[in-house]
């Protein structure tokens, strides 16, 4: 039999089986859809938790204060040196001029006459120019502090790392724990629903075991017996992916304002738009793979008998 005719027939049998075993096919579609929906939800939740973690971690930073009178060019040179030396580990380095520092201070204590009077008594702007440094990893704060004191001690007045060390470590420890917990919980949950899907698809193939036996007895090769079932499983997967896409898109659109009010700065619809290709790939390939592998394993079981 030419491979083309064989493939054409396998696809045709698979599609026909999908249509004729309507009830079993739609149960399979729903089971796969639940798995893919959960994986999609975890994908979106991952975006949400990353946004929250980033927001918390962004609040953690150290400040390197320069001696009074340090030129802006020198401060920029230190910033460039740090960015070059620590590369991707640097999330952000912001130059804060004495004027900006004063303005922040005034904004912060606007209603407090005590601070206003203290400033008036000092007479001049007491704030120093500084670099506000935000990094991706907590352990790097210590390295950056060491690097600054080793290479730029002549320009610096102080680096306020040591009195923030505890807070920084705790924030990073907690956020990393949350991140890992999320990954493990997602994997466990995914594993669990995949197993449920496997069992459900296996049950539907079990119902077709006498059909499989008959196909073997009339001389069909293993490939010719199992592939229509596998195609049927993949068609179910495709429909499941389509169903999930039809649920996820409007759900995200309508949930975006509510999510944004809970987590300011996180726009669910925007996150979805930016990651739609990945999400569609996960949904379609995941559903196809689940349909493929679960039917293949289930049919294989009866072919061995």
């Amino acid at each position, binding site marked *: *039999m*030419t491979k083309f*005719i*064989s493939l054409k*027939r396998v696809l045709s*049998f698979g599609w*026909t*089986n999908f249509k*004729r*075993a309507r009830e079993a096919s739609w149960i399979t579609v729903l089971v796969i859809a639940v798995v893919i929906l959960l994986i999609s939800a975890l994908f979106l939740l991952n975006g949400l938790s990353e946004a929250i973690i980033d927001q918390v971690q962004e609040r953690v930073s150290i400040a390197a204060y320069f001696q009074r009178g340090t030129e802006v060019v020198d401060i920029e040179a230190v910033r460039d040196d740090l960015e070059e030396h620590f590369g991707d580990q640097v999330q952000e380095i912001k130059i804060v001029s004495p004027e900006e520092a004063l303005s922040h201070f005034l904004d912060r204590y606007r209603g407090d006459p005590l601070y206003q009077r203290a400033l008036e008594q000092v007479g001049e702007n007491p704030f120093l120019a500084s670099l506000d440094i935000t990094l991706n990893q907590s352990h790097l704060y210590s390295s950056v502090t060491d690097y600054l004191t080793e290479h730029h001690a002549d320009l610096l007045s102080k680096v306020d790392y040591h009195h923030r060390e505890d807070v920084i470590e705790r924030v990073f420890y907690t956020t990393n724990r949350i991140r890992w917990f999320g990954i493990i919980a997602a994997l466990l949950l995914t594993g669990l629903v995949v197993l449920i899907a496997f069992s459900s698809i296996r049950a539907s193939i079990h119902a*077709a075991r*006498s*059909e499989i*036996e*008959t*196909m*073997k*007895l*009339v*001389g*069909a*090769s*293993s490939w*010719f017996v199992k592939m229509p079932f596998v195609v049927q499983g993949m068609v179910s997967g495709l429909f499941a992916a389509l169903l999930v896409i039809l649920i996820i898109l409007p759900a995200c659109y309508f949930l975006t304002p509510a999510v944004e009010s809970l987590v300011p700065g996180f726009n669910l619809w925007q996150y979805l738009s930016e990651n739609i290709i990945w999400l569609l790939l996960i949904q379609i390939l995941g559903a196809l793979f689940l349909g493929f592998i679960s039917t293949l394993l289930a049919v294989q079981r009866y072919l061995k008998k």
Partner: protein
Amino acid sequence: MIKFDQVSKLYPNSCLALDNITLEIKQGEFVTIVGKSGAGKTTLIKLLIREDIPTEGQIYFDGQPVLDMNRRQICQLRQRIGVVYQDYKLLPQQTVYGNVAYILSVIGASDAEIARDVPRALEIVGLSSKTDDFPSQLSGGEKQRLAIARALIHQPEVIMADEPSGNLDPYNTWDIIEVLNKIHQMGTTVVIATHDKDVIAQTEGRVVAMDEGRIIRDDYQTRNFVF
């Protein structure tokens, strides 16, 4: 064409289904294997198509030892033997047309061949008006005729029918035996396993009688065969 050489089959429950059977069936023969239920008739068919394996002995099909065949050769063997099963073994998700066409698909026939041969086979067994029906919509006699159409569609070298009369009424039984006689006249080797005396009465040729897993008589007979 078919040779059972000192074949025994002992089932796990210690039931001896076949006891040292030696039987040879030549090409073009019409053989009726008769015996009561449990005599070992169905086991013979199962062993020939490698649905099961004997405890002892060897089976040859066209000179090839069936027990030594690999998966691919077993598929080819099954394609060369058309079997009409007692329980029909039809594909429930396929229509009458689909059940017959499936066999041609398995052997790699072209779409044109399928479109040409399937209606012809259905006409021979009188199911032309039922092509779009599913097996669940057919009567016992129609299922049996469909099973025969499926067994003969690819013109196998041997057709084996296990209790072809099944639970059919005498009219349907006569009908089916007539179809098998016609197939035999076209040169196909036909083997029928039955316990039905009416079936034996309608067949001509060799009759092999079995009892408790043994061959007790092997003769050419036309009428009033006693077992």
